[in-house]
C-alpha cells in the first residue's frame, strides 16, 4: 500500500491528462458517431473516465469518499444503460435501424 501511496504522493497530472483525453474521446464519440450503440459506449467511456479520476483524487488526498462515490456512479450508469438499451430495442423494432437519424419527425 505504501508503495502505491508513495507513487501517488507524486504528481497527479498524468491521471488528469489521461482522464481528460478519455472524456474528450467519449464526448467526440457521442457527437460524431451515428450508431446508437456506439453512442451508448461513448457515454460509458465518459462515465468510466470520471470514475478513474475520482479514484485518482481519492488516493491522492487519502480520502476514501471518492471511491465510495464511484460505486454510486457505477450503479447509476447501470440503471441508465438498461433504460437506454430498452429504448434502443423499441427504436429498432419501429424503424428497423439503429442510426441516430432514424427518428427525426418531431421537427418544425
Amino acid at each position: 500500500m505504501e508503495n502505491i501511496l508513495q507513487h501517488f504522493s507524486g504528481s497527479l497530472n498524468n491521471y488528469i491528462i489521461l482522464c481528460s483525453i478519455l472524456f474528450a474521446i467519449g464526448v467526440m464519440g457521442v457527437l460524431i458517431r451515428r450508431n446508437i450503440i456506439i453512442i451508448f459506449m461513448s457515454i460509458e467511456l465518459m462515465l468510466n473516465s470520471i470514475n478513474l479520476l475520482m479514484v485518482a483524487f481519492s488516493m491522492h488526498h487519502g480520502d476514501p469518499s471518492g471511491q465510495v462515490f464511484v460505486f454510486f456512479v457505477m450503479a447509476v450508469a447501470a440503471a441508465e444503460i438498461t433504460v437506454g438499451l430498452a429504448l434502443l430495442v423499441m427504436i429498432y423494432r419501429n424503424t428497423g435501424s439503429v442510426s441516430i437519424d432514424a427518428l427525426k419527425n418531431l421537427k418544425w
Partner: protein
Amino acid sequence: MNLVWLIPLLPLLGFTIIGLFPKYLNKSLVGIIGSGSVLGSFILVLTLLFPFLTGSAESQVYKLFDWVTTGSLDISFSFLIDPLSVWMMTIITGVGFLIHVYSISYMHEDEGFKRYFAYLNLFIFSMLLLVMGSNYLIMFAGWEGVGLCSYLLIGFWFKNTAYNNAAKKAFIMNRIGDLGFLLGMLFLLFQFNSLDFQHIFSAAPSAFTENSWIIITITLLLFVGATGKSAQIPLYTWLPDAMAGPTPVSALIHAATMVTAGIYMVVRSNILYSLAPFTMEIIAIIGLVTALFAATIALVQNDIKKVLAYSTVSQLGYMVFALGMGAYQIAIFHVTTHAFFKALLFLGSGSVIHAMSHEQDIRKMGGLKKYMPVTYYTFLIGTLAIAGIPPLAGFFSKDQILANAWAHSPLFWILGTAGALMTAFYMFRLLFLTFHGEFRGTAEQKSHLHESPALMTVPLIILAVLSITGGWIGIPEVLHGNNFVVSFLAPVITAPSVPHEVAHSTEYVLMAISTLAVIGAIAVAFVLFVKKSNVPSSDEKGYTPVHKLLYHKYYIDEIYNALFVKPTSWLSGVIYKLFEIKVLDAFVNSWGKGVKQGSSGLRLSQNGSISYYIFAMVLGMIVLLFLSRNSEFISTLF
C-alpha cells in the same frame, strides 16, 4: 307601522316567484299571484291611508337600513309616509290592481303571459319605491326601475323590430331626462351634503335666495328629468310610439302611473320650486304649449291608441301647467282624476281592439255600441269625464287648473280653454267614429264582435264609477265644497307662495263659459261624425296642408332624426373607422402578430436531428462552465 316595508315587498316577491319559477306555475296561478300581490299592497296602503284621512296620523320616516355611508355622506334606505306618498300609493296599487285583473283576461292567449305579469309586478315595485322613498336616491332608483319596466313592456312582443325600436326610443329619451335629474341631484348633494327630503326641505329657505342662479339651475335640471318621464316638450315623442306595447301596459304605465312620476317629483320638491319663480314660469309655459300641441295632433289621428296617447301628453301638459302656477295640490288632483278616466279609456280601447281582432284603426270601426254595450257606456263616461262635463271627475280638476290660469293671466285661461275644447272634440270624435254609425270593418271582423268577459268589464265599471265620483273629493269652495284634496295634501306643501285666488263671481262665469264651450265642441263633433258620418279617408288624399302637418305630428320625429340621430350615427361611424379599427384593433392584433412572427422564427431551431440537440447541449454546458468562473450563481449549479 312596521309593515310599511311589506308594501313594496309583495310585488317584488310576485316578480321573483313568477320570474324564477314560471314552469311550475300555470297561467291562472300566475294571474292570482300577480294580482294578489298588488291587492295585498293595496290593503296595506289603505291601513296607512285611513289614519291620514281621519287626521290622526303624522308624517313619518321608516328607516330600513343604512345604504350609503362614506365620509360625511350618509344616505339611508328609508320610506317617508306622508299624505302625498300615501295618496300616490293608493292610486298606484288601486288602479294597478284593476289593471292586473283586466290583464288576466286580455293577455290570456299570449304565450308571454307569465313574463308579462312578472314585469308588471316589477313595475309596481319600482313605482312604489319611487313614491315611498325618503330621499332623492331612492326616488331615482325607482325612477330608473320604472323606465326599465317601461322598456321591457313596450318591447314585450320582441319579435317585432318596430316595437323594439319604440322601446329603445322610450328608454333613451328617458335617459336624457335622467341626466338632468342626476345633475340636479348632484348640485343638491354639493349644497346640502345630503339627499334626504326632510333635511333639504327644511334647510332650503335659508340656503337659497329667491331666484338665485343655483336654485334656478337645480330646479330646471330636476324639471328636465320630469320632462323626460312625463312626456313634455321636447322629450315627449316616445309616448305615442309606446303604444306598441299591450294595451293594459299603456293604461298602467303610460297613463296612470309612470308618467305621473315627474309630476310627483316636482310636487315633492315644491319648496325648491317656489324659491325659483323663474323656473315656474318656464314650467307653466312648457306645460301649456305641450297641452295645446298634443291636442292639435290628436284631432286628426286615426289609431285609437294614438289618440289616447296624445291625449295623455296633453293632459300631462295640463298637470305641468298647474305645477308651473304653484297649484301643486290641483296638479295631484288632476293626476288622480286622469288616472281614473285615462285608465278607463285605455282599458276600454283594449276591449274594442280585442273584439276587433286586433284592429286599431278607427276608420275600420263603427257601430260597436250595440255589440259591446258595457264597453260603450263606460267609454262614454270616460269621454265625458275627460271633456270636463260636470259633475264628472275631470270637470273639477280641470276647472281649478283653469281658474288658476285666469288668476295668473287671462291669456293662459284662453289657451287652456282652447285646449279643453280640442280635448272634448277629439275625444268625442273618437267615441263617435268607434261606436256610432255603421260598422265599416270586414265581415270576418264583424263575426268576432263580442262584449268582453267579466274580468275585463268589471274593472271598466269600477273605473267608470271612480270617474264619476272621483272628482267629488276636490269640490272647490266656490261650489260649496270643502276641497278635500287640497286640505289633505296641504301638510306636504311648504311653499311660501299661495295659489292665486279668484273672485267667486268670476269663477262662476269662467266655469260657465268653459262648460258651454265644451258642450259646443261636442255638438260640432256630433254633427260632423254622427249626422254627416264624416269618416276620414283611408289614405291621405284630400288632406289639406294643415291636416297633413298635424297628421304627421308636425314631422317632429323626422326633425329629431335629422338633428340628433343621424349626426350621432355619423360620428360613431367616423370614430369606428379612425379609432376603433386603426388604433385599438391594431394594438390588440399586434400582440398576436408579434408572437406569431417570433415563434415562426424560433421554431426553425427544432430540426428533429438528435445529434444537433446533443451538440447544442454540450455547447451550452461549456458556456456555462466558462461563465461559472466569474459568477457565484452559475457555479452553484455545479
